[in-house]
């Protein structure tokens, strides 16, 4: 690990003072010389691997008020520095937004969930082994223009949706699927100004620049996430399928939220897929097929087929199409039969 400077920004003013001195970076935020650190579970790990080589870390843990969970009439606001464990166990979240609580509780392990923040979780980097191991020269995400070792290599864990000829790395998180399904909004702060971004717009498809993962600027900080209160948030569920029972990334996951009318017909469906795509993935075609229908094995299978219609498998990961479809079918059936 290369040497770096460590500074604490205990209040917004200190943060402004530190960031005002940083030159605007030419490359993407992930390669900027100065990085934020909060939980540290992603960035410090990647620094030990020499995948990320910042020259300065700005510790934002002391910034007050960013760890709150606040309910208003129209939404719930989840602070950027709230810890995964605290949000997963929060009574408001477990009762009104179970898909959020489950997505967090099924991720990582208790120690990591005690450390990791919501904003860091959303921005965590891919687990592609060719990205994480710098002895592989070819990685367009780590080393733009160098190629992709995964395309011709071992690509069982890789994505089948949203892939490009430059990158097939899977977006690793779970929480992001809950956020994109529930139409969350990201609030950010940059140079003294706040802006609100639809969560669905936060991550960029890899295209020919997989090194640029989000639309955030290198001096832009996430303040929190606003999740609208809606009819479908209570009837929601996160299903995660993985190689081992716990402490593992998803091979396939589905975040589902349903608004079901008294006749058992779906008024609104919200569906997102994880473990199978390069970015948090909203399955709108599947949602449209379920509108006005009861959730049965047949309608769920039709929706799941639509969700993976555009899938592009590699040599080792074609199994993810069937696994992903079955994961979504299970999530839809379980969500529709929830007693709320």
């Amino acid at each position: 690990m290369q040497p770096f400077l460590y500074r604490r920004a205990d209040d917004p003013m200190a943060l402004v003072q530190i960031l005002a001195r940083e030159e605007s970076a030419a490359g993407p935020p992930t390669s900027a010389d100065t990085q934020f650190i909060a939980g540290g579970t992603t960035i410090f790990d990647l620094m030990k691997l020499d995948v990320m080589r910042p020259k300065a870390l700005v510790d934002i843990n002391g910034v007050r008020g960013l760890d709150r969970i606040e309910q208003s009439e129209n939404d719930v606001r989840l602070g950027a520095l709230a810890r995964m464990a605290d949000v997963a166990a929060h009574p408001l979240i477990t009762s009104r937004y179970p898909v959020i609580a489950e997505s967090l509780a099924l991720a990582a392990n208790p120690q990591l969930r005690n450390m990791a923040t919501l904003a860091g979780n959303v921005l965590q980097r891919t687990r592609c082994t060719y990205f994480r191991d710098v002895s592989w020269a070819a990685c367009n995400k780590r080393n733009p223009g160098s190629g992709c070792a995964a395309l011709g290599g071992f690509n069982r864990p890789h994505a089948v949706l949203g892939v490009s000829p430059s990158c097939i790395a899977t977006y690793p998180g779970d929480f992001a699927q809950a956020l994109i399904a529930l139409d969350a909004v990201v609030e950010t702060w940059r140079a003294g100004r706040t802006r609100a971004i639809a969560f669905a717009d936060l991550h960029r498809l890899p295209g020919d620049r997989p090194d640029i993962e989000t639309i955030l600027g290198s001096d832009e900080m996430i303040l929190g996430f606003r999740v609208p209160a809606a009819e479908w948030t209570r009837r929601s569920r996160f299903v995660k399928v993985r190689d081992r029972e716990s402490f593992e990334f998803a091979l396939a996951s589905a975040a589902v939220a349903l608004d079901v009318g008294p006749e058992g017909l779906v008024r609104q469906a919200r569906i997102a897929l994880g473990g199978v795509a390069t970015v948090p993935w909203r399955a709108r075609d599947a949602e449209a097929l379920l509108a006005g229908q009861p959730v049965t094995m047949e309608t769920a299978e039709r929706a799941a087929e639509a969700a993976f219609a555009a899938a592009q498998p590699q040599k080792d990961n074609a199994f993810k199409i069937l696994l992903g479809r079955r994961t979504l079918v299970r999530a839809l059936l379980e969500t529709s039969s929830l007693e709320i």
Partner: protein
Amino acid sequence: MPPDFSRRAFLGASASGMALTLASAPLAQEVDKGDRPADLTTLVVNGQSYALAVEPRVTLLDALRERIGLTGAKKGCDHGQCGACTVLVDGRRVLSCLTLAAMAAGRAVTTVEGLASRDGRLHPMQQAFIDCDAFQCGYCTPGQILSAIGCVEEGHAGADADIRESMSGNLCRCAAYPNIVAAIRQARSEMRRA
């Protein structure tokens, strides 16, 4: 009143912050100069204060083991995947290999060396690990014990399945898992009585 990150207070502070003219160089240039004095960090471990001059990249785990001499917390994978380095910080179980020493400054760190009472009586979880034969080689045990205490205090020591899920961050290559679950079952009631 300290600055607060409510929306209004934050925007106000930001606006005044932006008005300042800043003369010093960017952080990245400072590090390139090469003469980096180690930062003075005060760690509070098992109730005792230690003033250490450490480089920013020193982890809490290395500070405990190499600087303070508390070698209970183990360096297994050094990437947050094995749990052998688990300690409590302000009562919460965390991974000391992914925590910068500087980030733990002033917070209460508890390692396995700080669990027994002054008269030498073991913590109920330590005693339970002995009683239930919950280890073989012992390398992962300090991390297991700290994590098991977290498991009980977080309220996850109910059904065996909950215990196993809650202990998923601690690997044991001798596979003493069934006895670790038994030890947690034994200690949970004693911890509640204490």
